[in-house]
């Protein structure tokens, strides 16, 4: 198992290097630079700015200087926000995005898990069709539609919950978490249903039934762990996706998270910020995928045995 983790981590290094290199040269190849503005910039001013950000050096030197800084954990100063460095911006945005992602995942797990189990217990009945139809709607409905819809109902008409903000007013975390979680809840519902259906037809479930165990005990004690494996495999990429993809929700609800910085950085040609967030998020995605694999191995004895054999 340790060897498996170590190998996966080793594989991650070239992947990240490729990500850095491609991003580095792509952002510089994009037309327009960080100091272009709609008002003419004096050549002297532009030269001074470029010198301050090492943009006057040949591009290969810039690249190696960046790699050198990165090795020291320094992501460089932001172009757009003078006086802030990328490390600071990421550490300001990350906790918010992670918190939002965690709540959304919780929402997704509870709603999606329950719906999936309910549906799997009585397949092809109303108890299956109703939650699965909702799940289909959830998958199809984009967050930029669901978010404003929830805001209109709960924020404007019912006046129950705040319409924007994060940690400003009590209850302002509910709507964004629901919005972001909904699509994932839908996925989890479908995955959970499929997983549970498969498990419920296994021999050991029949054995449990034959022993006369009550249905709820069969579900909770015997079926759940096996049935949720597809869900767990989905969780790693899902959490990474929540972190990287929360931009829309962050914009709708004016949440000061990483997603907003990321997208704005691209528009602003904030080279260091684009690179910093890309490197950071790709590292996270790799890590979460690894975690999901480990978790899946732990839950699935067959896979665990396989990994053990390959030692």
């Amino acid at each position, binding site marked *: 198992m340790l060897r498996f983790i170590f190998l996966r981590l080793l594989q991650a290094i070239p992947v990240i290097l490729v990500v850095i290199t491609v991003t580095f040269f792509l952002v510089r190849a994009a037309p*327009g630079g960080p100091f272009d503005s709609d008002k*003419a910039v004096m050549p002297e001013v532009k030269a001074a700015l470029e010198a*301050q950000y090492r943009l006057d050096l040949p591009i290969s030197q810039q690249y190696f200087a960046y790699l050198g800084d990165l090795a020291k954990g320094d992501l460089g100063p932001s172009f757009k926000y003078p006086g802030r460095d990328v490390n600071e911006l990421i550490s300001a945005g990350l906790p918010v995005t992670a918190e939002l992602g965690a709540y959304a995942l919780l929402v997704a797990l509870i709603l999606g898990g329950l719906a999936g189990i309910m549906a799997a217990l009585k397949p092809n009945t109303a108890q299956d069709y109703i939650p699965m139809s909702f799940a289909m709607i959830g998958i199809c409905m984009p967050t930029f539609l669901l978010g404003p819809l929830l805001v209109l109902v709960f924020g404007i008409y019912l006046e129950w919950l705040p319409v924007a903000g994060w940690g*400003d007013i009590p*209850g302002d975390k509910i709507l964004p978490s629901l919005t972001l979680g909904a699509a994932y809840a839908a996925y989890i519902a479908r995955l959970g249903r499929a997983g549970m259906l498969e498990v419920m037809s296994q021999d050991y479930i029949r054995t449990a039934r034959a022993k006369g165990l009550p249905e709820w005990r069969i579900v909770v004690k015997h079926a759940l762990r096996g049935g949720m494996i597809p869900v767990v495999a989905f969780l790693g990429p899902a959490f990474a996706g929540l972190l990287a993809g929360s931009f829309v929700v962050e914009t709708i609800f004016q949440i000061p998270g990483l997603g907003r910085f990321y997208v704005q950085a691209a528009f*602003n040609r904030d080279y260091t910020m684009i690179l910093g967030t890309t490197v950071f998020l790709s590292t996270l995605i790799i890590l979460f995928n690894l975690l999901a694999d480990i978790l899946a191995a732990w839950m699935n004895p067959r896979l665990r045995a396989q990994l053990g054999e390959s030692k």
Partner: protein
Amino acid sequence: MPFNTLKFFIIILFSCLLMACIGGESKVTTGNRDGILHLGNGTEPQGLDPHVVTGVPESRILRALFEGLAVKNPYTLESEPGVAERWEYSEDGLVLTFYINPAARWSNGDPVTAHDYVWSWQRALNPNMGNLYAYMLFPMVNAEAYATGKLENPDDLGVKALDDLTLQVSLNAPTPYFLQLMDHYSTYAVHRATLEKFGKATDRFTKWTRAKNIVSNGPFKLTEWLLNRRIVVEKSETYWDADKVKLNGIVFYPTENIVSEERMFRAGQLHLTNDTPLEKIPGYREMENTPFMQAPYLGTYYYMLNTQRAPMDDVRVRKALSMAVDREKLTRTVMQGLVFPAYAITPPGTLGYQPPKLFNYDVEKAKALLAEAGYPNGEGWPGLELVYNTSESHRKVAVAIQQMWKDALNIEVTLANQEWKVYLDSLTQMEYQVARRGWIGDYVDPNNFLDMFLTGGGNNKTGYADPLYDELILTKAPQAKSKQERFALFYQAETMLMEEMPIIPIYTYSTKRLVDPAVKGLPSNLMDSFNFKYVWLQAVNNSKEGE
């Protein structure tokens, strides 16, 4: 299992109800009671160093935190005492002397002196600062030479401290608008000791503007700066005119998404918004006591024409295109009557100046001009590309004009939207035929619009070049003896410009925002200039929940 599901839903329902109870008072209600203004400010500011940042959201915060030598009265836009209690021009108009208010203080209690200004302006003009607004001080002797590195010694700049409270500024030419520039953040003084404590004075990266570090001299001081969340300022006790400041504080929110901003306003989370979504305006207009405010704004929306490329190298084509745009219809329909048709680059009424109107919407004349240019009824038309930066409203305008040109002149025009930086690059490289552009004035004076079209000017980018025009703007207008004479020279220059038509003026901008009825002392003005010193909050009686 069904039991568990039921229990779960009951819990959810219960928590929603609980939330409903704690929802309670809105920020506007508590703000009205505590004298705190909640303001939608567009975006997260780049920073708060007045010599580094550019932008409207930044300028609002900086105006609360700092004060210039002279400020603008929000009602009249006339200059009134700020840090300087009075000033006088020499007879020839070349020397301006400021007398600093002895009561002016920094937020740490230090007196504001003339030396602060000398040092700060040297910093603002230092080439290493990379200050995009350095040109604001260029009317001053040697400012341009120093900022472009042609002059080494900052002591040669035309700014001197005669004593602690007397500041003398030497100008290259009489500059009637120089006083107005004193209200622009790029000319603000900064606190030397604080800057030097946190690093090199000309370094853009120091942390002197952080909430716990910054020392400022305005009516408010910074107490909290949460990135992408909010900026909080509170009334400064050391401000010389603190008695006049009625607000206890202001909270600035980075409301980038204007649709969310409008919802925040409706939910009572904001006193005023930065903008209003176009599609919401008709609804707000129908409301009784509408919070919707609309006012002319010192800016012109226009299309630039690349006069170095066919077919735009022919003035008859340029004129034909301009005459075939029905501005009245465009502003009434596409822009919902929010903006005003423009026929020249300077917005009408800029300090009393009225720009020339040399043409009308005239399809017949436009057709004739195009025929003269060799494209009768659009025959042989080589095609044209209209570039705009990605935005729904620019697209709507472009589509409407594309159709007008098609209907009136029978010519094909293709539209190309470009992402902001790509679009800026196209403009800089002059890689375009027709490009959408907007210009918002930095100060109220025709000069600010007309000096864009000087030969080779950084903002010109149309290929327009006329030595006579340059002479009028650069030499003759500054030497004019009276305002009338000066404006006559501007009129002459603008007439020349519009005869050549390197641009197609389309409309004059307006500001559109939602303002809670409790907000008082915040009049609309041409500069959209806020002077928070004048603002107060007075709750309207129909909401009794706060009592």
